[in-house]
């Protein structure tokens, strides 16, 4: 079933791992079998080489393709199963918790397979360390204090995000707050305009006129409206009326019979509302032209 296919699949990785140290025997086009008896390696990891291909089950190839890990926990292996499968990882003596994971299963299985139940005390010829796992071990040692660093970084990021969100919120709310003041003052100015249009002309020109003749002005404090939360907005209304230049002198103008033969009385009735938003003062005016 795996004739030829496994050969091409495994020859290259196998050579890569055992370069110069192993001799490959080809057995009738069947599985490639490492001559493990002659391999210089010892220990759990390299005893796997003895079973790697020779132990392949044609009925269930998955069980034997990963060296010696037929029933092991794949997550506990050094490297991903694919690399184990392709034997891209040099068999090695695991270290630390990897030793707990790999060494325990492997050594136990080896011990179970041996007739001699005495524990294996023989150490591998090579030192059993691997560059990648040395780095991993260092990373583990560097993990001490990582929680503090990660918490500090997360706190800093959260603080930054909070400030950004606060600024964005203020950027949205501040113009709306300003717009609310505009809405309220605009609404109030509808009264000033309607009143100026509605007031009878004789009342407008009376001595107690709501709009005294300029430069006289009348000032009064008014409640413009209320903001959400029942917060009153106060303002000051200043009213005055300004005569047209074509009026007769008695009406504040310089007109004559020649320039104003119809004796028109024209007044600009002006209301100015001043209010404050924060530290700034605003003024809004409406002018109505009344004539008779």
């Amino acid at each position: 079933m795996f004739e030829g296919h496994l050969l091409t699949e495994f020859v290259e990785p196998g050579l890569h791992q055992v370069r110069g140290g192993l001799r490959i025997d080809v057995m009738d086009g069947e599985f490639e079998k490492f001559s493990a008896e002659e391999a210089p390696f010892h220990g759990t990891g390299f005893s796997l080489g003895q079973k790697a291909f020779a132990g392949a089950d044609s009925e269930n190839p998955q069980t034997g393709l990963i060296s010696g890990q037929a029933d092991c926990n794949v997550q506990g292996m050094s490297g991903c199963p694919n690399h184990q499968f392709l034997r891209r990882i040099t068999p090695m003596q695991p270290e630390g918790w990897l030793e707990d994971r790999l060494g325990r299963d492997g050594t136990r299985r080896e011990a179970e397979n041996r007739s001699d139940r005495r524990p294996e005390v023989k150490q591998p010829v090579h030192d059993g360390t691997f560059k990648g796992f040395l780095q991993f071990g260092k990373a583990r040692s560097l993990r001490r204090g990582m929680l503090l660093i990660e918490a500090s970084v997360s706190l800093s990021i959260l603080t930054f995000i909070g400030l950004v969100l606060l600024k964005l919120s203020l950027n949205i709310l501040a113009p709306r707050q300003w717009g609310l003041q505009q809405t309220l003052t605009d609404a109030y100015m509808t009264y000033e305009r309607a009143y100026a249009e509605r007031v009878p002309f004789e009342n407008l020109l009376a001595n107690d006129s709501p709009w005294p003749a300029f430069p006289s002005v009348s000032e009064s404090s008014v409640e413009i409206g209320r903001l959400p939360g029942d917060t009153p907005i106060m303002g000051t209304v200043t009213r005055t009326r300004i005569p047209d230049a074509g009026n007769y002198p008695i009406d504040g103008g310089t007109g004559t019979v020649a320039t104003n033969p119809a004796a028109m009385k024209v007044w600009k009735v002006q209301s100015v509302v001043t209010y404050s938003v924060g530290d700034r003062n605003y003024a809004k005016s409406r002018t109505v032209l009344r004539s008779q």
Partner: protein
Amino acid sequence: MKSNHHTKRRGFTLIELSVALMMGMMTGAMLLALFNQQLAFIKIYRAQDFLSVEAPVISTYVSKLVGKADRFRLHASLDEAKAGSNPRLTASPVAVLNFRQPDGTMRASILSFEDLGDGPALYYYVVPTSGVLGDPEWAITTKAKDVVFSADQGVLRMSITGPAGELITYSGTMQQ
């Protein structure tokens, strides 16, 4: 080898654990503050909606109506408005607007703030020529908590109280 490896390990000191706990608590507190900040933002944003969105729309509708009217009356109730009894100039929930038609006849419409079962709302009625008032034509607003009409110096004023206590007053005069 394995046991030696484990014996070399040491636990965290009380200070380390305390610092880590403090950092965790500060991170949690910051997350909570962020959440509360967003809630407050949404609350303020929604509270501003009435004045910034709803009230101008009400003003547009009512100012168009009032500006086209020839005269108005204020009443305490819809029934009095229909009957034309007890007109007044003080604060009232019902305003009757009269419009002169091209043929010289008069038609009336009513602005009434009342609760018809779906909560208080400002409704607009058109009084038919038969005089029998039917259902309102439309609800101008359902978000106002109170609407009061009043007359000041001959100017019709409409004070609208919003759900958050905001108060805005629009004014208008009849066409001259």
